């Protein structure tokens, strides 16, 4: 038996504990119907042609700083911080599967493969390179070193947080969960977990946080649980989400029961409403500035 730090054993036990509660299919169906109804109403308010993609960041932002939603630019900019998770999970996957002995070697291998894939993808299109690979390929040595260093630190934190021998066939990284609100509602949810393990045929999710565990951690953990549940039938919906904040050493566990799903859905609907409002405001501001510019040019022409 491998000896691991007490904290690691505790987190692993929490992740893999037998499932205590199940969400009754009828209760889940009702909750889901109510959520869809609320989202459809909100979706109908979105300006014409707009589509709202919601992720954990957006839910957090709407909850903590609703005033900032209007000024957020949706354009994604790669940086060492934004790609450390993508490279880090691939590296941890290599370590857990025994393909690399440690995170430093694993990260180097993942980045080298990314460069190769980017080169092949450029030439033939036969390979799909990871999203960060082309950006990384264009960096000078000093920039690449930062990306590598950030990913090594991130991967080491995740690798040393879990007793992997106690987690059979974990999915590390894996695909994000996507849920499209039905009936043509232009709202999409994206949920992300860093590790998925199977407990009694139900997924248990592990999410790695940054900094300290926030006061609203239930929403932070509940959101990926809700999106994963929306993509599945009730009997195979996630049983729990475990959050670990390696920088502060904090761990939180959220059992995904009916109460947790309902509370999360309420918070998410409130967040979506904030984003819809900000999109309406943004559209109005754009329209006003265009009409203002028009009136100026008309005045100018008249003068």
């Amino acid at each position, binding site marked *: 038996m491998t*000896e*691991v*730090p*007490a*904290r*690691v054993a505790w987190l692993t036990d929490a992740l893999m504990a037998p499932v205590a509660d199940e969400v009754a299919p009828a209760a889940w169906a009702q909750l889901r119907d109510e959520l869809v109804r609320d989202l459809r109403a909100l979706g109908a308010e979105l300006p014409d042609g707009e589509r709202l993609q919601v992720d954990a960041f957006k839910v957090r932002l709407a909850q903590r700083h609703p005033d900032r939603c209007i000024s957020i630019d949706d354009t994604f900019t790669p*940086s*060492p*911080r934004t790609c450390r998770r993508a490279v880090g999970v691939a590296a941890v996957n290599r370590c857990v599967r025994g393909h690399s*002995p*440690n*995170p*430093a*070697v694993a990260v180097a291998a993942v980045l080298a493969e990314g460069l190769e894939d980017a080169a092949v993808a450029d030439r033939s299109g036969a390979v799909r390179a990871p999203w960060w690979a082309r950006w990384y390929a264009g*960096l*000078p*040595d*000093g*920039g690449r*070193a*930062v*990306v*590598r*260093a950030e990913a*090594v*630190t991130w991967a*080491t*934190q995740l690798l*040393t947080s879990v007793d992997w021998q106690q987690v059979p066939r974990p999915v590390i990284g894996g695909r994000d969960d996507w849920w499209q609100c039905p009936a043509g509602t232009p709202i999409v949810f994206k949920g992300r977990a860093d590790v998925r393990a199977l407990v009694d045929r139900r997924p248990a999710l592990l999410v790695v946080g940054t*900094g*300290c*565990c*926030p*006061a609203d951690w239930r929403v932070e953990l509940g959101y990926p649980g809700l999106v994963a549940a929306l993509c599945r039938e009730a009997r195979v919906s996630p049983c729990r989400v475990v959050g670990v904040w390696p*920088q*502060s*050493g*904090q761990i939180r566990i959220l059992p995904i029961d009916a109460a947790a799903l309902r509370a999360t859905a309420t918070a998410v609907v409130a967040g979506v409403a904030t984003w819809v409002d900000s999109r309406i405001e943004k559209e109005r501001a754009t329209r006003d500035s265009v009409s203002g510019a028009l009136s100026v040019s008309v005045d100018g022409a008249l003068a």
Partner: protein
Amino acid sequence: MASVLARDGLLRRLRGDGVSRPVIDPGLAGGLRDWLEDGLVESVAALPTGADVVRVNKDSLNRVLLCEAHLVAGRRAPRVVTAELARGSLVDALFRQWVTTGVIDDPWADAVASFDVDGDRDGVVAFVSGLPEAHRCRLAAEVAEHAANLVERWPSPSPAWLPRTQERVEVPLCGGRVVLAGVVDLVLGSPAHDRASVCLVELKSGTRRLEHRPDLHFYALLEALRSGAAPFRIATYYSGTGELDAEPVDEDTLVRALARVLDGAIRLCRLTAGVEPERRPNNLCAWCVGLPGCAPGQKRAGTDVALVSSGHGGREGALS
């Protein structure tokens, strides 16, 4: 050959060869946390509703313990990047690169690129780009010298030691109203099971100073609170000279650090609550941006014009 021996010696000192690593006391970290929170409870209760989180890092701690008015004046002044600060940041970046990749081909280009890739949030690239050519060349030469020293003297740690660079540590106290925070340049060793197994290293590009020790002790305390196990060793490495100050960590180290943190955190809470800062004239008054409005400081410094450390306005002087 000499550099290989020097590297080996440095590794042995980091590992603390020949010294048994302390057994972890599972109750110590919880006890330290309780002690801190008990000590802070009154100060936190006095914070106004909606007040910002009180962040305690090595810089705010050093400044508030030196002179509360100095800290407040520094916070009000715009952040100024100096040649010394820029050199420290650039050498830090090269140390990170060396530990991670084992290669530094073009120190200046690599160091500058490391800030560029992250959007130059600290303004280092903007500062060096704005320097007159001669100053920039001098700075580049200094950075290259530090890089050469690192390559010659600093051993590449085995990846099996799980080296991680610029690891951020944050410890929330009193429900998150106070956060102790730090970024450790290099952490070695996997998390401890029954014996302490982690070593923390801070890199300094400036002169060796006694005041660097409390910074390390603060980090040792942070690591103990975060992971439940104190590091077995803490060290400061001076890239200019190759000197290494390494010391073991015991309960006394942590308790001394705790007393200092508590003193500083209470002062920071008082300032956040709007209490008038206490003035403590000291040997850095001559460089304080608050000097023009501080009578005790002027008396101590013998002037009301503050010195600056890199010659951009004011009188020039050397901080060291």
